[in-house]
């Protein structure tokens, strides 16, 4: 209705400006550096670089295929059996990898399938020779599937659960078997969700840094992101870093463009609560197949987590807890992650409410540029990975003095922005659904501003905000991207310390730290979930 004075839109503009400042500053740094040493940047475009680009795309494509394909089957299997013992537990477990820091997962995978891992004896016996370990492409793929298979399964399941119960009632009345039901009811739903989910996974894999850094194991399996890190931290070759960064951005932009053409939407739609349906008969053969599918997925996802636990418990945890460095890193991590999560949720909420307010104002006309920005702005940050932003600011600030001094600011802001797509995923459906129900009523009764937030929005947003906060905090706690660039002896987070211990072959220490980090992230997500649910009643 009255647009300019709407505080919801103002909040959105502020959030967009903050994100633009962060990303804009990075690009200023990159362009400044590039213009400074133009020939150097050109010279960096050699055959090696092209091989890196090819590998980046290849591993992302394979990871997407291996994650999304099986996830379709697993999600369908789970939706065919809406109630069985342990189903809730499996879904909980499938939510965990997203909360688990990449470096922890990488260690878990190494502990399981690595050269000295729990399975190495078995794998050597099967292969007939010494198990070479899982470094390289295979390690990267296993790790990416570990993260993205459960994520995609949950998203596909969500899509399947939006099928109204009436359709299933109708299907069983018409005597539809599993095959036609899949073709006519489930597949259209899955196909609609497919581009969005595959797109999300592909983007996550193309910008994956930690996994490739820790499991890539050499120049043969290096991606652009790791290349940027090496150029800045080891070779100190700014021109090369600029070339790599611009290539990375161009690549992700291109992919994103293709995906939007395909109709992908990286933020979810509202899912309505659906009554559990019981009028579904599943044949014995299909049941067995589904059990096998679910069990395989379960083992694959649970394995690295169990290995992390076992290896971590084998470490000298008492001594680790007594170390001043470990304590300091823990405190630093906790503080930075808390502030980062707070900022992330605030920015996400601002964008969500602004988008909704603009959409309500628009009615039937075309979307304004602002609404478009509020809608996809958060998805766009996927295009600009943390390393790129970090690299840009690194190059910009190295002339201004000590780049390592701004490490805390960089970690907080970059991680906050990176967590936004996930926070928005948690917040937007709830906000939009609540708005759908309450908008006219609020307008009629004059409930606006703070009163509206307190009485109407907060009760329906409490839980999604807690979920968003926990996710953002877990992501920030486990992030290695920005801190890898800016970390130093004076500012160390837990993942940074972990990497350092791995690098110096103190595997037991690393396993212990990984357990600590993993448990903290886990506890965080579970606590927020429980808190939100408890308050709802």
């Amino acid at each position: 209705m009255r647009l300019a004075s709407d505080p919801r839109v103002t909040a959105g503009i502020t959030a967009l400006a903050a994100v633009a400042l962060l990303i804009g500053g990075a690009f200023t740094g990159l362009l400044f550096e590039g213009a400074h040493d133009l020939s150097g940047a050109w010279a960096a475009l050699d055959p090696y670089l092209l091989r890196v680009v090819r590998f980046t795309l290849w591993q992302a494509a394979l990871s997407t295929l291996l994650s999304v394909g099986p996830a379709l089957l697993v999600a369908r299997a789970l939706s065919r059996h809406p109630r069985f013992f342990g189903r809730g537990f499996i879904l909980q477990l499938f939510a965990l990898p997203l909360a688990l820091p990449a470096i922890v997962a990488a260690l878990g995978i190494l502990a399981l399938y690595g050269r000295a891992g729990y399975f190495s004896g078995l794998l050597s016996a099967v292969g007939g020779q010494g198990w070479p370990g899982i470094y390289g492409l295979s390690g990267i793929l296993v790790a990416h599937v570990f993260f993205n298979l459960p994520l995609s399964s949950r998203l596909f399941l969500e899509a399947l659960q939006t099928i109204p119960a009436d359709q299933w009632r109708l299907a069983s009345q018409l005597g539809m078997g599993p095959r036609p039901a899949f073709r006519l009811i489930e597949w259209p739903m899955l196909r609609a969700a497919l581009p969005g989910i595959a797109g999300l996974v592909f983007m996550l894999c193309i910008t994956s840094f930690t996994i490739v850094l820790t499991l890539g194991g050499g120049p043969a399996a290096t991606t652009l992101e790791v290349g940027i890190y090496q150029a800045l931290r080891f070779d100190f070759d700014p021109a090369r870093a600029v070339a790599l960064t611009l290539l990375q951005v161009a690549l992700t932009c291109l992919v994103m463009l293709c995906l939007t053409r395909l109709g992908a939407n990286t933020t979810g739609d509202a899912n309505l609560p659906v009554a559990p349906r019981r009028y579904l008969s599943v044949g014995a053969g299909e049941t067995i197949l589904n059990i096998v599918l679910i069990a395989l997925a379960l083992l694959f996802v649970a394995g690295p987590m169990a290995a992390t636990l076992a290896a971590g418990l084998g470490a000298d945890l008492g001594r680790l807890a007594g170390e001043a460095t470990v304590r300091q890193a823990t405190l630093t991590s906790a503080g930075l992650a808390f502030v980062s999560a707070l900022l992330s949720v605030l920015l996400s909420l601002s964008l969500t409410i602004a988008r909704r307010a603009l959409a309500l104002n628009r009615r039937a006309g075309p979307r304004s540029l602002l609404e478009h920005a509020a809608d996809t702005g958060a998805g766009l940050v996927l295009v600009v990975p943390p390393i790129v932003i970090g690299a840009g600011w690194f190059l910009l600030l190295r002339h201004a003095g000590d780049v390592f001094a701004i490490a805390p600011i960089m970690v907080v802001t970059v991680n906050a922005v990176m967590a936004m797509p996930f926070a928005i995923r948690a917040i937007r459906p709830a906000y939009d659904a609540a708005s759908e129900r309450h908008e006219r009523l609020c307008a009629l009764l004059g409930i606006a501003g703070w009163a509206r937030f307190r009485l109407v929005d907060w009760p329906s947003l409490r839980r999604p905000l807690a979920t968003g906060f926990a996710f953002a905090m877990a992501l920030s706690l486990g992030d290695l991207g920005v801190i890898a660039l800016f970390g130093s002896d004076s500012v160390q987070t837990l993942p940074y310390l972990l990497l350092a211990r791995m690098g110096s072959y103190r595997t037991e220490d690393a396993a212990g730290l990984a357990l600590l980090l993993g448990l903290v992230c886990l506890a965080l997500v579970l606590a927020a979930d429980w808190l939100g649910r408890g308050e709802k009643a």
Partner: protein
Amino acid sequence: MPIGVTNGAASGAEVRLDKVSFSYGEAPLFFDVDFAASKITAIMGPSGSGKSTLLNLVAGFEAPQAGRVLIGGVDVGAALPSARPVSMVFQENNLFAHLSVEQNVGLGRSPSLRLTGDDRADISEAIARTGLAGKEKRLPRELSGGERQRVALARVLVRDRPVLLLDEPFASLGPALRDDMLDLVAGVHGERGMTVLFVTHQPQDARRIGQNVVFLDKGAVAAAGTADDFFAGAGPEAFRRYIGAGAGDPVSRDIARKRT
């Protein structure tokens, strides 16, 4: 003495749509019509004839592309929905699911729920008047469909605006329950004398409490008159077609009257 302390807005105000045109992009709507003060007017018409849109224009959820909306002679075109002298009851989603009956009603008095002792007394009276005494602390999900609409009506009472817009609020209720609700509306109308605009698909609803009828067809007012005239067969051909053959004849009229 009417229930509840009124804020001086006890009687109704005339509602006038002065050459109002509006469109969602396809079918244009055009309304030029008066609704008499303190009367209950049933707004009827086929689906898509613009009944709900007419109410939305009065309430301020839609803005006319041309023409004026006047309430009590005042052009309300620039006013926000909450600033207009109207209350509205929708078919559903009239309540905030997480707030109690008491709180939902209280929002009619203060949008930030800052309530004085007098306010609380009014709220209790309104809850009692609508037959909800003892259910103050319940949440909407613990109420039946009819009870939820009663809460909405209780809020209308504490809001005490001269115009009440009803957008098929009882459409999903059974016949007996619907009659109870209509009688409640008629009773409240008798006490407060507000102007009621009542969208309905049911001729018997219109006949039960409607004093006037406005019939919409193809996005414009096709006919307007008293309910008695309409149901005595003096309505336009389109109206007779809409309510069905024979609906206006004395026999079916007799049946409809028997229920009262």
